């Protein structure tokens, strides 16, 4: 596609008054009350990222305590009850309150910047999603302080999580927490899909979209189709617990296995929801640090899409030991092995991109290379557990614990930390220390392997997961001690990055707009960007706009957007031809009010069903206030 330019293109010259007016229009108000009215996508994205990393820290501390408890046989550091709460909280918080929100946070922050627009399609909905997430997280950790935390594992199987075997509020808190995350993730997903499809810079047709944007798009579609299953399953469970329904109660004709089907129909795509954006981050970093176009763009896009589809056909491999029919098991074994194909295509494209390139080994690139080593090991054990006889042997042992930490930390957290180093100058305007970054990487890489590699052996020796201690005679003491030492090294590695990040805010070197020489649009604006993101919405003619501009010494932009209200360009879905202008809403308190109203309902129903009705009408009235048209009505 070509963009028609006017005969004899004219230079765009901005007066300081116009820029100041644009700044005022997009400004987020300050002050305590002002904080609750922010709607700009970068504010919300940053909050998602910071909040998620705080949960990462808290859940990481729980993980360390778990490792200390297991360091030697027959320890009584924390008793069995607290141990159950800790491993449940560790898994739940890492999966639901860290991994999904942090990926969404990066997508919310960077997708609009990478596609060259000024905000997302529904800025207020964005804010609503954040507050729901924040309140949900506070409620969950509050329950831990009150010793009311869930203790039935992060996948919360019935009948253990039923009323009979889990009295008390713990599991109720878990189902409530799930509801918060569903709402928050789904709002972000719809938001990202609509923004990506309708608000790309003119000229950025689908085949020119940055790979991270593709990954975020696939992640969002996966959330849209996976989350409904957990909406239904958590609703049925809470009804069983609060209203005495019989969905999962065998005596009443219920089916406990229905829970496993519904949960894993969501739960398996969930791990890919975490992985897919990380794949996008890896491609992004590889492009920048090899300074050349990626090998196999189309193959990479297609394999990310393929991973999205195939991941919905894998859920039964979590249920191989439940006695399902033989034919079904064979199908899911085949599907589980199939996922290796698109994953392999990705790896080979990356290897081809790195082959013969002048790689710059900066910190983000190191984390990506660390990903390769760890993720390949995790992938290999994944192929092993896809085989039913082997899976039956290691089911519920530490082999599984080793496997999923290899794929989740290796597959998601390592690229994520790399991406944090990569995008940090854009978010904060400061560079993090390279030396500290490299220390952090090596400590984390060595610590990670020392922690989790011995767990393969422990699993093969028969050590089950979720036991709070073990007898000396089992002979598992040495490897467990090694794993605990590794965990402390790993934590130190992440700690170095935390200190590096905080230190850089005050002492870090000032970042230029494009410190890494990257080709995508987020680097075309200041670091950190102004409230309006781009002074002019750019016009794009290839996959690597910044490299084009560097070569040509000139670039084209969109003109004609008003400065006195929040206007963005709408473009067509496939070709990104401009089709209209959308006026976006200004800051407001109503999303926060709606989030509080919804939270009253979610938490209230634990104590009495009437809160459902109360919250229904509270939310309704706050939504009416949110959407009620204000004069002056738009007339043009």
């Amino acid at each position, binding site marked *: 596609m070509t963009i028609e*330019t*006017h005969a004899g*293109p*004219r*230079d*765009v010259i901005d007066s300081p008054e116009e820029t100041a007016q644009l700044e005022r229009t997009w400004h987020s108000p300050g002050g305590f009350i002002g904080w609750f009215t922010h709607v700009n996508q970068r504010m919300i994205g940053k909050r998602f990222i910071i909040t998620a990393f705080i949960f990462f820290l808290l859940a990481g501390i729980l993980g360390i305590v778990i490792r200390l408890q297991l360091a030697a046989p027959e320890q009584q550091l924390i008793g069995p009850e607290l141990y159950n709460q800790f491993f449940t909280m560790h898994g739940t918080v890492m999966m639901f309150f860290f991994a999904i929100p942090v990926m969404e946070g990066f997508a919310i922050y960077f997708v609009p910047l990478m596609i060259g627009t000024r905000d997302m*399609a*529904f800025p207020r*909905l964005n804010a609503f999603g954040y507050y729901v997430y924040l309140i949900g997280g506070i409620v969950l950790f509050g329950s831990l302080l009150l010793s009311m935390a869930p203790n039935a594992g992060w996948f919360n199987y019935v009948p253990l999580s039923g009323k009979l075997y889990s009295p008390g509020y713990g599991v109720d808190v878990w189902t409530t927490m799930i509801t918060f995350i569903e709402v928050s993730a*789904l709002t972000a*997903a*719809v*938001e990202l*899909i*609509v*923004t990506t*499809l309708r608000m790309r810079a003119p000229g950025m047709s689908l085949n020119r979209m940055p790979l991270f944007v593709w990954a975020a798009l696939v992640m969002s579609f996966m959330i849209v*189709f996976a*989350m*409904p*299953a957990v*909406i*239904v399953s958590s*609703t*049925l469970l809470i*009804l069983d617990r609060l*209203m005495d*329904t*019989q*969905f999962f*109660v065998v005596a*009443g*004709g*219920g*089916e406990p296995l*229905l829970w496993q*089907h519904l949960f894993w129909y969501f739960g398996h795509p969930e791990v890919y929801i975490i992985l897919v954006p990380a794949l996008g981050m890896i491609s992004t970093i590889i492009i920048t640090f090899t300074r050349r176009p990626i090998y196999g763009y189309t193959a990479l896009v297609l394999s990310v899409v393929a991973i999205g589809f195939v991941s919905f056909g894998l859920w039964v491999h979590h249920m191989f030991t439940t006695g399902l029919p033989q034919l079904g098991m064979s199908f899911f074994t085949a599907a589980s092995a199939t996922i290796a194909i698109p994953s392999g295509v990705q790896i080979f494209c990356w290897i081809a991109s790195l082959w013969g390139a002048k790689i710059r080994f900066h910190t983000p690139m190191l984390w990506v290379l660390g990903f390769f080593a760890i993720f390949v090991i995790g992938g290999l054990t994944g192929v092993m557990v896809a085989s039913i006889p082997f899976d039956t042997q290691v089911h519920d042992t530490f082999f599984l614990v080793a496997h999923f930490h290899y794929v989740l930390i290796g597959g998601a957290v390592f690229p994520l930390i790399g991406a944090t180093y990569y995008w940090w100058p854009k978010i904060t305007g400061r560079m993090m220390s390279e030396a500290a970054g490299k220390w952090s990487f090596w400590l984390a890489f060595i610590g990670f392997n020392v922690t989790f590699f011995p767990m393969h052996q422990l699993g093969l020796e028969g050590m089950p997961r979720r036991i709070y201690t073990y007898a000396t005679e089992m002979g598992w003491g040495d490897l467990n001690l090694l794993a605990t030492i590794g965990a402390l090294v790993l934590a130190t590695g992440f700690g170095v990055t935390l200190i590096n990040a905080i230190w850089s805010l005050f002492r870090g070197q000032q970042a230029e707009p494009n410190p890494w020489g990257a080709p995508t649009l987020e680097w075309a604006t200041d670091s950190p960007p102004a409230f309006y993101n781009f002074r*002019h919405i750019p*016009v794009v003619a290839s996959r690597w706009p910044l490299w084009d*501009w560097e070569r040509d*010494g*000139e*670039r*084209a*932009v*969109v*003109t*004609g*957007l008003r400065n006195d209200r929040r206007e963005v360009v*709408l473009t067509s879905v496939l070709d990104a031809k*401009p089709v*209209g*202008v*959308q006026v976006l809403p200004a800051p407001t308190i109503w999303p926060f009010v709606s989030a509080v109203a919804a939270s009253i309902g979610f938490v209230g129903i634990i104590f009495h069903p009437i809160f459902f009705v109360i919250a*229904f009408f509270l939310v309704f009235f706050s939504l*009416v206030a949110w959407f009620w*048209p204000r004069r002056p*009505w*738009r007339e*043009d």
Partner: protein
Amino acid sequence: MRVLQGIDVADMTRFNPDRRAPLWWGILGLITIESAVVLTFCVSYMYLAAYAEAWPPSGEAPPLLWPSINLALLMTSALTMFLAGQAINRGNQRGLALGVTTSVLLATTVLVLRTLELMAYEFSWKDHAYGSIVWAISVFHYVHVTSIVVGSAVVAILAWRRYFTSQRQIGVVVDTNYWYFVCIAWIPFYLLLFWGPRVYGQ
């Protein structure tokens, strides 16, 4: 670096009442999510039915008359909603207000009838898995009909106050599309809840 004028959007429309509007896509997203929820409820019903010894446990299939009348009322309300949307496309504000109000009244009738039906169920959600899933699906849809009634009542109020025009009508488009979804969602539920036992019972 030279910054050149590429595309000028000063004269482009600021109203996007049709498919160009982000909100149209947003509501499509909500409908997709909720359709997946509807599907999951249906699958759960079929799963429980497939493993049950008798479905329903009493052996008697539920009556068909009132649910069918509800289905007809909901479909009619979708039609009046469609006509309301057509009216405002032509700039007919009174037609819009009348259409939306008629739909709200029809759906309110459905709510009254459904309330009577639920009160007449011979089983509780506590009795058995059949009772649980039938009540869950019934209440799920009941809540949705309630939400379109209160939501569209607000649209009707704005319509009578002549807020909407053929240009400024994205609120109507969104409300109408969600209305269609709630009405159409009743079709699989109706088939499953009232015809399903006749199939599984054999």
